[in-house]
């Protein structure tokens, strides 16, 4: 029994080390991705000169129109959720480094928060996708015109930020799955 215990302990320690490496790498990757996604959407601004014909006889008037990221609430929500996820990834990175699998309650708390981050990030991504799709295609039934034919760089930046944010959400999902697998492996 003692030999088996010693063998078990070694297996547990090896698991802990490999769990730590992949977990730290994933957390750092999630931190980087959500940070970049928040920044890319946060500095999104484009000004274009649109020529409008007011009266048929006069020459067309060029009006500068601006598109900023905070004009749409879904993008504001995505930036907020990305910054929350980034801050959480930084804090949990520090906590995981300091903890090293000693306190079980802390590991459980981090798993709970990871789960909440998965939900938040996916909802932010879904909201920005829906609003971006309206801006890209327009909606003839609701009479919402498309915006992306004028502001193409703005739309491309939104698409890039959305892709990064969804990638970050997937990484959080993988982290939750990995911590669950580790929980099952220990017993």
């Amino acid at each position, binding site marked *: 029994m003692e030999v088996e215990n010693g063998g078990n302990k070694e297996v547990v320690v090896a698991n802990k080390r490999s769990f730590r490496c992949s977990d730290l790498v994933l957390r750092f990757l999630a931190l980087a991705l959500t940070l970049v996604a928040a920044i890319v959407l946060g500095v999104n601004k484009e000004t274009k000169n649109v020529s409008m014909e007011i009266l048929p006889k006069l020459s067309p008037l060029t009006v500068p129109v601006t*598109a*900023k990221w905070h*004009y*749409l*609430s*879904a993008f504001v*929500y995505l930036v907020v959720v990305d910054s929350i996820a980034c801050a959480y990834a930084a804090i949990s990175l520090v906590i995981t480094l300091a903890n090293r699998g000693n306190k*079980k309650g802390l590991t*459980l708390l981090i*798993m*709970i928060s990871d*789960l*909440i981050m*998965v*939900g*938040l990030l*996916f*909802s*932010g*991504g*879904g*909201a*920005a*996708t*829906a*609003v971006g*799709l*309206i*801006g890209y295609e327009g*909606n003839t*039934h*609701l*009479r*919402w*015109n498309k*915006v992306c034919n004028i502001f193409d760089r703005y739309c491309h930046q939104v698409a890039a930020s959305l892709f990064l944010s969804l990638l970050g*959400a997937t990484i959080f*999902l993988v982290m*939750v*799955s990995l911590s*669950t*697998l580790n*929980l*099952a492996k220990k*017993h």
Partner: protein
Amino acid sequence: MAEVEKKGVSDQEAKTVPPEHTKSSSSFFSVADVVLRFFLFVSSLVAVLVMITSKQTTTILVTVPPFTTPFPVVSTAKYRYSPAFIYFITALSVTGLYSIITTTMRFLALLKHKMPTTLLLLLIIMDVLVLGIVSAATGAAGAIGYLGLKGNSHTNWMKICYGFDKFCKHIGTSVSFSLFASVILVLLVLLNTYALSKKILK
């Protein structure tokens, strides 16, 4: 010889005591799991039904710029007019089907008092995946609903809830039910992880 036999009997007694002790607490986890999954099924079903029955036809007074008098236009609002709502219906139908399958699976495991670890692990991971799907649906439908409620002056998107009030109420109810479903999924994952960590597999 008799002492060895007595030791064997006492060892067997010692072995049989712990499973009986964990049976009552482990059945609590299984029962709570089945009840939560049933609530998940009910809430996703209600969300799908409420959104499907949200069709509304009203007459709106439209003012076209050359003319000054507004003339009435009969227009309909259906859930099919927006791809976000179509995704919402699809995602919640998938969740409803998933909850039916897993409720019956867990109920059978509860009756048989046996739940293998790999199945519990698979359930947890699938729960997290479905949580991602449902939260994306909630976010998408919520964003479109909020746009319909408030409109957007910068992009010149008119608010529609002033005319289509029943449609907007249905959308709002549906989104809140799907939010409730995602909260239930979080609770399910927490419950199953706690049960897994305590080595209670029944």
